[in-house]
């Protein structure tokens, strides 16, 4: 390859910055979101099971909303700029269809690992975008009636928004494990530090 690439294991500054910011913002969004969840659990309504306090941020519904809607703008900005930069500068690193085929067919384990990792982190971007869109549809269902309409009914919308939390938790774990197996602590460190 003729194009200059950064040394292996070293991510550009913007990737590291977006990673670090995203981890902090996601913690705020998830913990304050679960606080809001507790006011009327998505599953079961008023009789539904609530989540334990150590996972929550805000102290009460109003406090959870204060954090959630203060964080959302930064979260959206961070995600939007990140995806735009990725598509512009590093779109070759995003997953494509041939990753699925190499996952199916390739005999080389490193190659399969890389393919599955690309699928995992690309899926993270899609899930985060879905969290943002479903959140917007719930936050402003009158102004964005067309967006809310895309999700069918309100319960589906709430379920989709909530489901992005376990989905991101699982994907983040896989992302961490796969990064570790591909590049060890050096790669993990170079992602955020």
């Amino acid at each position: 390859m003729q194009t200059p690439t950064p040394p292996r294991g070293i991510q550009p500054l913007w990737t590291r910055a977006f990673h670090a910011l995203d981890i902090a913002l996601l913690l705020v969004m998830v913990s304050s979101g679960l606080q809001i969840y507790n006011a009327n659990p998505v599953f079961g309504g008023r009789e539904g099971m609530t989540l334990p306090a150590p996972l929550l941020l805000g102290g009460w519904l109003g406090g959870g909303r204060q954090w959630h809607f203060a964080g959302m703008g930064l979260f959206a900005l961070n995600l939007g700029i990140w995806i735009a930069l990725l598509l512009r500068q590093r779109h070759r690193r995003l997953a494509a269809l041939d990753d699925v085929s190499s996952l199916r067919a390739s005999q080389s384990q490193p190659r399969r690992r890389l393919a599955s990792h690309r699928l995992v982190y690309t899926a993270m971007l899609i899930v985060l975008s879905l969290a943002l869109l479903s959140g917007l549809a719930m936050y402003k269902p009158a102004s964005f009636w067309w967006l809310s309409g895309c999700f069918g009914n309100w319960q589906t919308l709430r379920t989709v928004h909530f489901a992005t939390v376990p989905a991101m938790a699982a994907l983040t774990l896989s992302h961490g494990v796969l990064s570790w197996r591909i590049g060890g602590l050096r790669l993990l460190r170079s992602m955020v530090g």
Partner: protein
Amino acid sequence: MPPSPGPGRRQLLQAGLASAGQLLLGGCALNDLGPGVAGASRPLNERLEAWLQSRGPIPEFRRDQVEPQRLLVNNFQAVPQIDPASFRLSVEGLVHRPLSLSLADLAALPQREMVIRHVCVEGWAAIVAWGGVRLADVLALAGVSPLAGYLAFDSADGYFETWDRPTALHPQTLLVSRMNGAPLPAANGAPLRLATPLKLGYKQSKWVTGIRLLASLDPLRRGTWEDQGYEWFAGL
């Protein structure tokens, strides 16, 4: 040599991880910062909300889409006892003609029905058909001063709310006396409550007895729940 992160960056990373850990192990220390982060983000959020809502009416649902079973009841106090015969709605403050309207006076005004989504701050929502008079029609009867930028709504149970003028004058903001084709039940605010597709449920006072037109808001009395920390504009 692997380029290791410099000490500054490492310290930053450690501080970040420490605060993340604190977040996970009980955001209690951060809970007190809620009003602060809200103060920093709400002015911009509210301006965006008001701008979004200035772009025409909100599409309504079909009558067969109403979800009576999904509409939960949240009350501030017990349901107040109101005699419909002696009930009066007062309209005062910055108006040319202060009013005291009976239910018959309100029934004589043009009635309309809207099928909208009622969204609660708690996260649930229900599609409801609300029937009543436009708040704008009542305000036109009173003749609102151009100085009146805000409205305060007093309720029989002591609940109170304040609104911005544009939402109050919006054609889809109603003073309702009917719900899903039947007279409004007492638990849902009979004889008179607010309804709009533009704001969260806690803005839509039940058992409304008085409307006051104001030039400015008292920052310490912006609404029963707003004074506890809920959003004031609360646009949907």
